[in-house]
């Protein structure tokens, strides 16, 4: 069986790459071809026109494509989440100096409060702060906006938010095109290394368990190639186990950095995969556990509630009215049934439910399972809001 997978050169493309490189795919009778591109638009085009069977994709884009936002609707399916979090908010040193504490990692509320003051000053001076995100339909955009809005900074009113391609994020900070970016690794680290940016906040500080990249396929392709897709899910779980083992970090950083994959500096990639991030040029690395989250707690399980959360943010920021029909379509993009079917009878834990109240856990909690044992750790939003998928309009009404 053969599958081709499109990806962007980002550290969180790790699981398909490692599934191929370490033979996990081969062990499942699967031959993987990886297709590297430089924009999400091209990754999506290749998926829609059959150049690739599956794609590494920003989660909201899979939902936007299904709902026909920005182009004719095409139903996509997500049977596997490639990872949670792993992004950072990186600011010009001048802005960072105004909003972050003198030492150590800032707190999302405190940094947000300081940022609100600067944002108001800059708006009054006629030069509003400008943020860069990697795509309109990216988790980066939604996490950044969630944080700003909860701190009293209104996106598109008090600050501007624009799209910047990941390879140009450091340039954009240096040239003053933007004051801050929200981007995945290794691009924040590239900016830090060049001394043009300082990491101020991790996306995991905004939502401790925020959905990030997904494995997306066209719905008919997933049905046609169901056996191959299920084999891929098993191979990706194995790749995740390998990825999080500290014994493999150095070797995996070297593999991921190769020209045909990220074409990056292995030292920078190693920082991300070991959760040891350098916040400022020449500074001491900060250990932030679960900066990236690719494996534990069934991290790859496509929780329907996460698709629904993304849909609420889409209505919020695209300024479209909530529609129960669209919410249901968005929810169906995530396919826990396929994930379960692929892993049933293996040693992998499978949760009992397919949807959960997001942000409700403050402590480690054991959950009921279909198979194996599972605990979930804190999954809180920094502002303490709770997302109940049974009441989407109620949740939207309660947002600032």
């Amino acid at each position, binding site marked *: 069986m053969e599958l081709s997978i499109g990806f962007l050169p980002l550290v969180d493309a790790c699981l398909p790459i490692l599934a191929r490189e370490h033979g996990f795919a081969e062990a499942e009778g699967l031959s993987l071809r990886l297709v590297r591109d430089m924009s999400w638009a091209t990754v999506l085009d290749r998926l829609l026109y059959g150049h690739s069977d599956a794609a590494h994709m920003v989660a909201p884009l899979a939902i936007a494509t299904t709902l026909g936002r920005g182009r*004719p609707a095409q139903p996509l399916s997500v049977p596997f989440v490639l990872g949670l979090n792993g992004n950072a908010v990186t600011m010009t040193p001048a802005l960072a100096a105004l909003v972050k504490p003198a030492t150590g990692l800032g707190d999302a509320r405190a940094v947000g409060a300081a940022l609100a003051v600067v944002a108001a000053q800059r708006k009054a001076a006629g030069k509003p702060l400008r943020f860069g995100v990697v795509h309109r339909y990216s988790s980066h955009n939604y996490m950044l906006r969630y944080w700003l809005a909860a701190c009293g900074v209104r996106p598109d009113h008090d600050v501007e938010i624009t799209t910047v*391609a990941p390879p140009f994020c450091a340039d954009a900070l240096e040239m003053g095109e933007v004051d801050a970016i929200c981007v995945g690794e290794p691009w924040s680290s590239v900016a830090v290394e060049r001394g043009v940016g300082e990491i101020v906040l991790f996306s995991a500080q905004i939502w401790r368990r925020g959905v990030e990249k997904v494995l997306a396929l066209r719905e008919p392709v997933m049905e046609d190639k169901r056996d191959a897709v299920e084999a891929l899910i098993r191979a990706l779980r194995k790749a995740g186990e390998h990825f999080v083992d500290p014994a493999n970090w150095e070797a995996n950083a070297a593999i991921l950095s190769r020209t045909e994959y990220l074409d990056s500096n292995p030292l920078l990639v190693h920082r991300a995969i070991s959760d040891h991030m350098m916040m400022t040029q020449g500074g001491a690395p900060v250990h932030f556990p679960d900066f990236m989250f690719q494996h534990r707690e069934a991290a790859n399980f496509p929780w329907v509630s996460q698709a629904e959360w993304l849909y609420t943010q889409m209505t919020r920021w695209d300024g479209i009215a909530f529609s129960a029909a669209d919410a249901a379509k968005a929810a169906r993009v995530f396919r826990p049934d396929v994930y379960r079917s692929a892993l049933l009878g293996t040693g992998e834990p499978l949760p009992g439910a397919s949807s959960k109240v997001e942000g409700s856990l403050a402590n480690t909690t054991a959950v009921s399972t279909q198979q194996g044992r599972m605990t979930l750790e804190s999954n809180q939003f920094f502002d303490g809001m709770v997302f109940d998928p049974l009441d989407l309009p109620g949740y939207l009404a309660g947002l600032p």
Partner: protein
Amino acid sequence: MRIAIIDDSVMRASVIQQGLAELDDCEIFVVTDRRGLVARIGEIAPDVVLMDLGNPSRDVLEEFFAVSRALDRPIAMFVDESDDEAIAASVEAGVSAYVVDGLAAHRVRPLIDLAVRRFNAFARLQSDLAEARGQLAERETIDKAKRILMTSRGLTEPAAYGEMRKAAMQSGRRIADIAEAVVTAHDLIGGPR
């Protein structure tokens, strides 16, 4: 019709531009610099935008098309969704096209077809060029290996070449590979150059 070609390869952009010049009633603008891209497109106010699929700025441009009021008319990928074949061909060739709303399909289609042909021609040109470069480099290596054999073993030029050809036939390798081995061995062992 105002056509903007966005490509960070100056060479390819000019190949496309030359191809489109044969169309009547078209004004062509080439943008190769990433900086100020969006502002430049705003100024040009194109009816059609052609951009290579490998360009990292595609997401930036699509965002601009989605939210900007700078262009009078909305612009979207391709003229209509029924034209799947044309879209597939252009994705195959590595070009994305954005067309303003309301532009008639019969005006756009020839343009897209032409762009696709030029993109394909450019890709062929590049692979021919790479092949020619490779052949040239091989030629040089073979000459170098011949000189080494002539000096170290006192052979004539045809005899030196004959030796390499014999070794190639015996080991089932290409003469260029044998020559490469001779040069490498010579460099490692040292000796008169």
